[in-house]
């Protein structure tokens, strides 16, 4: 059974009128929720999860594909029209996109984002369809030791590479792993961290955790600092592009796609790095470098394409290995598990038709996005003007509804509030939320693989590195962990190379506000041991 015929079967399933309708509903709902400021794709998927519960798995996942791409697209609309990136992956789009909108070129910015997303999404999904079976073939040869190593790598990479403070990332990861421990131990059946509460015996529902950390935490956090002055939202007509815009956009779309897909597929993936790389590349290659910073269309076209290609790339390890690498994929993995479907190498064998229907509906969702959203853009722009009290009250309302409808028990709402307070605190003190969410989801799987590994080796820890791939991955893990130390040694050996290093560091954190004061950094280096989160005398936090 080759890829093509499987995919055609997938299309046959996805193109029935009923399933097509679900795809349309998914795209519209996903975009509508994704457009709302403050709601990134991960939150969109988490909030809309209950809507899919009543459906049978195939239809649910078809709808899901629509929600996924819809949420991504909605986020880009928000960042262009409001300079409000819902998720860190849209930060770069907002740089030029919002400038374009302010210069009266909102229609072109939205058009290049939409068409670029379509191009990148289509290529990315094609690559997904081609790559996933190859990854699966490779993955079935892997044993528990390698799986364990890959999961360790994914967790550490997300924790140590992204975000501005590694220490705070690890703190967040620790909390997530602890939350993941709650419930019955899968091997011995003993209760851990349940404090005698029977309701905790099954563990915390991942939907409740995700909705609490993303939506409730965000609503509380915004409420605490709500801007009382009216917002400036740029009115927009139907998106369109002139000949010149097309000419300037198509190459960035393709280059962005080339950056996005591989990064999305890596365990430390995510869209932050490729979108930023795409931005930098377009700036360098552009014939109009003077326009960058004032609304250059290449600066929207490239990063948006990279973002969407990364979204497709993320699904490769998610489907083939059961390994989520960003928040959205983590929530999707939770959705899969709630249907009793375990993503991983066996998925393509056991649930083949469902997976291919999902991939086919990613193509369909992508096309629908273009057809539906170009004419509807003015409507989405109106959504941005929703009065803030209604918006955040609505987020709380639907978060409650979503979390309650999973098990219909008020206890889940108590957990929602407690974890929402945790999310609030994390935003207040700069703890990244992604390591926590991944820790909750991957923690139990990690423990399962660890125990399986040592069971096979009869308790000998050497079993952990009994496979060559596992050894290779541990080398990468070590490099990531000791990166700051290596950097320090390198800088001591070649002090004149330091500025170049500072420049490289900036690429990992695409945040214009974060300046790298080299002198301060060296000063702080002296009293730094293994603590990877340093501060300069000014009290400003630096990226290690």
């Amino acid at each position, binding site marked *: 059974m080759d890829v093509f015929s499987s995919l055609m079967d997938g299309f046959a399933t996805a193109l029935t009128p009923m399933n097509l309708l679900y795809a349309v509903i998914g795209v519209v709902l996903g975009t509508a929720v994704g457009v709302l400021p*403050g709601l990134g794709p991960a939150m969109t998927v988490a909030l809309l999860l209950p*809507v899919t*519960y*009543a459906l049978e798995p195939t239809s649910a996942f078809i709808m899901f594909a629509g929600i996924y791409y819809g949420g991504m697209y909605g986020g880009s609309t928000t960042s262009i029209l*409001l300079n*409000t*990136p819902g998720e860190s992956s849209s930060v770069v789009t907002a740089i030029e996109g919002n400038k374009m909108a302010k210069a009266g070129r909102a229609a072109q910015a939205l058009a290049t984002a939409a068409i670029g997303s379509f191009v990148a999404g289509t290529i990315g999904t094609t690559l997904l369809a081609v790559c996933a079976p190859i990854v699966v073939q490779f993955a079935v040869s892997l044993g528990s030791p390698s799986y364990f190593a890959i999961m360790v790598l994914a967790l550490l990479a997300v924790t140590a590479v992204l975000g*501005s403070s590694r*220490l705070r990332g690890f*703190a967040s990861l*620790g*909390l997530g*792993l*602890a939350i993941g*421990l709650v419930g019955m*131990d899968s*091997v*011995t059946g*003993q209760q*851990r*961290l349940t404090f005698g509460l029977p309701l905790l015996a099954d563990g915390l529902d991942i939907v409740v955790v995700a909705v609490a950390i993303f939506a409730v935490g965000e*609503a*509380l956090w915004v*409420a*605490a*600092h*709500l801007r*009382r002055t009216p*917002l400036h939202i740029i009115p927009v007509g139907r998106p369109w592009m002139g000949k010149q815009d097309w000419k300037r956009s198509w190459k960035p779309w393709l280059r962005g796609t080339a950056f996005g897909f591989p990064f999305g597929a890596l365990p430390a993936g995510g869209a932050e790095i490729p979108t930023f790389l795409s931005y930098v590349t377009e700036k360098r290659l552009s014939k109009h470098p003077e326009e960058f910073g004032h609304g250059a269309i290449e600066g929207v076209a490239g990063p948006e394409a990279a973002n969407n290609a990364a979204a497709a790339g993320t699904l490769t390890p998610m489907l083939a290995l059961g390994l989520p690498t960003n928040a959205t994929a983590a929530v999707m993995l939770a959705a899969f598990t709630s249907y009793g479907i375990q993503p991983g190498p066996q998925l393509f064998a056991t649930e083949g038709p469902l997976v291919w229907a999902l991939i086919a509906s990613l193509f369909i969702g992508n096309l629908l996005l273009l057809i539906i959203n170009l004419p509807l853009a003015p409507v989405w722009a109106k959504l941005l003007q929703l*009065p*803030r*009290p209604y918006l955040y*009250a*609505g987020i*709380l*309302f639907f978060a*409650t*509804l979503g979390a*309650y*409808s999973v098990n*219909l028990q*008020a206890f889940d*709402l108590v957990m929602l*509030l407690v974890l929402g307070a945790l999310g609030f*605190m994390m*935003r*207040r*003190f700069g703890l990244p939320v992604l390591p926590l969410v991944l820790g909750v989801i991957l923690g139990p799987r*990690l423990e399962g693989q*660890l125990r399986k590994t*040592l*069971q096979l080796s*009869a*308790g000998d820890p050497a079993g952990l590195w009994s496979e060559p791939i596992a050894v290779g991955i541990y080398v990468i893990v070590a490099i990531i962990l000791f990166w700051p130390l290596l950097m320090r040694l390198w800088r001591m050996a070649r002090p004149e190379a330091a500025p170049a290093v500072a420049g490289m560091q900036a690429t990992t954190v695409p945040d214009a506000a974060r300046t790298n004061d080299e002198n301060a950094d060296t000063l702080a280096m002296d009293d730094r041991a293994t*603590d990877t*989160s*340093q*501060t300069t005398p000014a*009290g400003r*936090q630096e990226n290690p």
Partner: protein
Amino acid sequence: MSSSPTVASRLKGRSELGVALLLGAAGLVVFLDANGLATPYSRSDPVGPKTVPFIVAGLLVICAVLLALNVLRGGSGEAEGWEDVDLAHPVDWKTVLPLVGAFVANILLIDWAGWVISGTVLFWGSVWALGGRHYVRDGLISLALSILTFYGFFLGLGIALPAGLLEGIL
């Protein structure tokens, strides 16, 4: 802000020590909980249910200590900001607490009074807390949302939210 910025910044630093405390406490709880598990040695499960909790507890405690040191040395996490968030003013408890109040009211009411009533209270209370002052309009919107979601979930998704006091009417 009459006090000097150093006092203010030191206070901010101190509040972050609470995070370190929370991490440490969480680590301790995880450790004690795992320590209390009785595990006979088993050949088929040499790792046992304790090992991973011990590692997690260790991670949490190490993070707590390092974070405390980091904060005492003047480090601070970057608060998350964007267009709707104005970090210039401090945490506005007058908004947050009523919001939490509305949320708690919903938890207390949902099983007894039903979703339509508790959801209305939740939405209306949240809008009020966030500064909405069109009492009647907000009330109507709240009620409409609750009723719509109640029927939407029942008819569209087959999920029966509790009807509570209005059972028989809805």
